[in-house]
């Protein structure tokens, strides 16, 4: 259906262009036409410049009203996230002001000084004072942003490990994620892809002789206790991947041949996040869309969509091949007790191996 529509639109646009060309050709046949803008062109385009300014403003407002709730600017699920959100909001406000003012000047001047026969432009080639002003203003604003940004960045990236931190390995492969927990000893066992042995289910290439590896736990869901710092060690076995956890304002590439790291402290459990007003609204909107889609599907005799319930997600955000668009892992943030209960159900590495 959409294909037919698209073709129809394309055809009608082609016809429209054809017609317009005809009209312009007829119109220009009467008078001398040098193809250089005359007063009439300047007037029309001058007004269109103002029209375009209104379009930019109007479209911006339309976007903000309609989709303004999309951006992740608040409700961060990690403790450092609110720092990023604040900096982002400040930057957005600055951008918004500069955008509004400069676009106004650009289009208003275009309108106001539209050409007329006999008018002469002002010969005005230079003004060091002005140049100085608009060099120094960006310098000051940017200096502020740079300093704020760098403090935030080093706060996030130069984390310190303490006794209580949870160490988790995120392991990427085409096209899924695994998590490896360090177990009782809180030390990840040695691992290398050369030790992978599919036959005995040593899928992450752990060193089977390493005592630290014995109690490691490998899972396909990422469970995290709330309020405790998590240190992620990222590995990839094949191509570049990127561990992207937008709700936690966290991202780091997974690079074959090296271990990368990132750290955050989850500040809100999955259950708490589901109860926030923002999330309740969001889930309701999504379910409305899904319900509408389901109706169509049922009409076509297909299975309806499931109801959506919010979960934190880990997405792959570095192009990694065919199923890149569907490389995800569920993240569950829960209380320490729930986490411990879940952990006690998991098999430790030495018991997960298949003995031949």
């Amino acid at each position, binding site marked *: 259906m959409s294909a037919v529509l*698209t073709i129809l639109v394309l055809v009608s646009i082609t016809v429209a262009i054809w017609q317009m060309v005809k009209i312009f050709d007829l119109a220009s046949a009467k008078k001398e036409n040098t193809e250089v803008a005359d007063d009439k062109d300047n007037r*029309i385009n001058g007004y269109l410049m103002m029209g375009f300014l209104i379009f930019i403003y109007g479209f911006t407002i339309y976007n903000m009203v309609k989709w303004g709730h999309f951006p992740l600017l608040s409700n961060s699920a990690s403790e450092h996230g609110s720092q990023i959100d604040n900096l982002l909001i400040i930057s957005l406000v600055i951008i918004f002001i500069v955008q509004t003012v400069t676009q106004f000047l*650009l289009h208003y001047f275009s309108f106001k000084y539209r050409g007329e026969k006999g008018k002469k432009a002002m010969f005005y080639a230079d*003004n060091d004072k002005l140049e100085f002003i608009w060099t120094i203003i960006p310098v000051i604003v940017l200096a502020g942003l740079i300093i704020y*940004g760098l403090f935030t960045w080093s706060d996030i990236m130069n984390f310190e490990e303490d006794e209580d931190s949870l160490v988790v390995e995120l392991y990427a492969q085409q096209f899924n994620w695994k998590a490896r927990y360090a177990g009782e000893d809180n030390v990840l066992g040695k691992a290398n892809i050369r030790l992978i042995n599919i036959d005995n289910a040593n899928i992450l290439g752990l060193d089977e002789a390493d005592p630290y590896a014995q109690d490691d736990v490998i899972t396909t869901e990422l469970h995290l206790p709330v309020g405790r710092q998590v240190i992620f060690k990222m590995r990839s076995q094949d191509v*570049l991947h990127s561990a992207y956890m937008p709700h936690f304002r966290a991202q780091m590439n997974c690079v074959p*041949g090296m271990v990368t790291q990132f750290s955050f402290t989850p500040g809100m459990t999955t259950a708490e996040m589901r109860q926030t007003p923002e999330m309740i609204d969001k889930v309701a909107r999504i379910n409305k869309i899904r319900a509408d889609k389901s109706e169509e599907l049922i009409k076509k005799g297909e299975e309806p969509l499931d109801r959506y319930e919010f979960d934190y997600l880990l997405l792959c*955000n570095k192009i990694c091949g065919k199923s890149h668009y569907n490389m995800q892992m569920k993240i569950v943030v829960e209380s320490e007790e729930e986490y411990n209960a879940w952990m006690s159900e998991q098999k430790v590495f030495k018991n997960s191996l298949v003995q031949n």
Partner: protein
Amino acid sequence: MSAHVETHMDDHGHHHHKETFVTKYIFSQDHKMISKQYLITGLIMGIIGIIMSLLMRMQLAWPEEPNAIFSALLGKWAPDGVMDADIYLALVTIHGTIMVFFVLTAGLSGTFSNLLIPLQIGARDMASGFLNMLSYWMFFLSSVIMVISLFVEMGPAAADWTIYPPLSALPMAQPGSGAGMTLWLVSMAIFIASSLLGSLNYIVTVINLRTKGMSMTRLPLTIWAFLITAVIGVISFPVLLSAALLLIMDRSFGTSFFLSDIFIQGEVLHYQGGSPVLFEHLFWFLGHPEVYIVLLPALGITSEVIATNARKPIFGYRAMVASILAIAFLSTIVWGHHMFVSGMNPFLGSVFTFTTLLIAIPSAVKAFNYITTLWKGNLQFNPAMLFSIGLVSTFITGGLTGIILGDSALDINVHDTYFVVAHFHLVMGISALYGLFAGVYHWYPKMFRRMMNKNLGYIHFWVTAISAYGVFFPMHFIGMAGLPRRYYTNSAFPLFDEMSNVNVVITTFALIGGAFQLVFIWNFFYSMFYGKKTVQNPWKSNTLEWTAPIKHIHGNWEGKIPSVYRWAYDYSKPGHDEDFVPQNIPLKEGEEELQH
């Protein structure tokens, strides 16, 4: 220039060589013909690139729905009209490669550096006509190879235009990394050689062949932009060439420059000790300056077009030159902002944040100077002028979001999302494309001796301007919502369901904008044969190319090359009857030249 050379060249101008069809139209060494060859090749590649982007947009708006256009254009890659995920990534890759390199580097810089450098500095031709010809034909060859790569058995390269290994290095990681990637690398290696030949020629020509009186401070800003662009190209393109060669070694000869510890499809590969991050450094050492290689010529064209059509000197000539130089210098030390989350040392992230945000300063100066140039002007809204003003507008909108992406702390959460797509398409894609259009509308009479239809130009501009905002503005919102780019469909995540209608809006604007490029194409080719004949200086411009005869002659000017007595921006200068004073008009008695 010595008197001897000048006489010789003058003889040359009068006694034409016998030209055959082949030497005139195909293996031409005349810069004017070569520039047309660049332009038309660039346009053809541009059409391919834009069609690809529309296919991607249609897939994103209506995923999994059978589409007759897909089956028609993609054949086996769209069984039953449903696009295959691998070919989507291939479209992403080839669209990016074609637009960045083939259209906006070769098509823009190649066309206008070739056309304008000799004509605006007052030279008979490029320093080496032969190298210039070679440069075009290597570009043509690389274009042909890139197009051929679309038809290989396993599909074209699909690791994105950044071709990060190991994805690009291992045919088992994706089908496009087989023969498709080999052809991509070969094509790009030839492209880089072509670009280097061109750049060296531009630099030598600008430095050595300026006519009498054309001091560096009297150069039009177009020439400054082309010169500095060529310098950046010479500095950074060889680094990409080396990266491509090392990648070829890794792929074909078993070396491990970029690969280490890989287990794929059930087997361990022998690679040991290399690093993909090294490739990222090498790639972006070109990749970021490339942004300015694309953008500076567009800004140069804009400076010229805005001044001419505002009938006013460009405001702050010295500051404009200084900011070109500052941007060029900074552009080579900011590449790391593409790699904040690549796993490199966080300290490096801090350094690159600092240098990256600095580049906003010269960019802001340029934007303010353009706006001030309009102030109290007598603006002539020719199509080129509209596109130049449009460029300033998208340059501002797109550039501003750079302060978010360049800030390492903020980049963590918007890296590789649609926010980035919105940012760079506006600031370099659309802006540079507007620069290209402005250049074509403005210098078309010089190239083809006829005028383009202005009304079609107006329709082309206004529809393009509205669709460009319609396409890229909403992407900021879905990007900040965490929607990753390069996803074949968003339907694998119910979380993104509420953005599906945004994708429909974006695609609708894209289809309208794409369709209206046909207006331009039609105008371009129709006017070549049936357009109004031009007068010598239709825009009443000051630069030297408009003193050359309309008819193209080998050597550009009959008789002596004009000498230059003033800068290029004496528009509406008090004390003159006309509102323009071409550069070859001597100063009147008592007239002062501006000091710059």
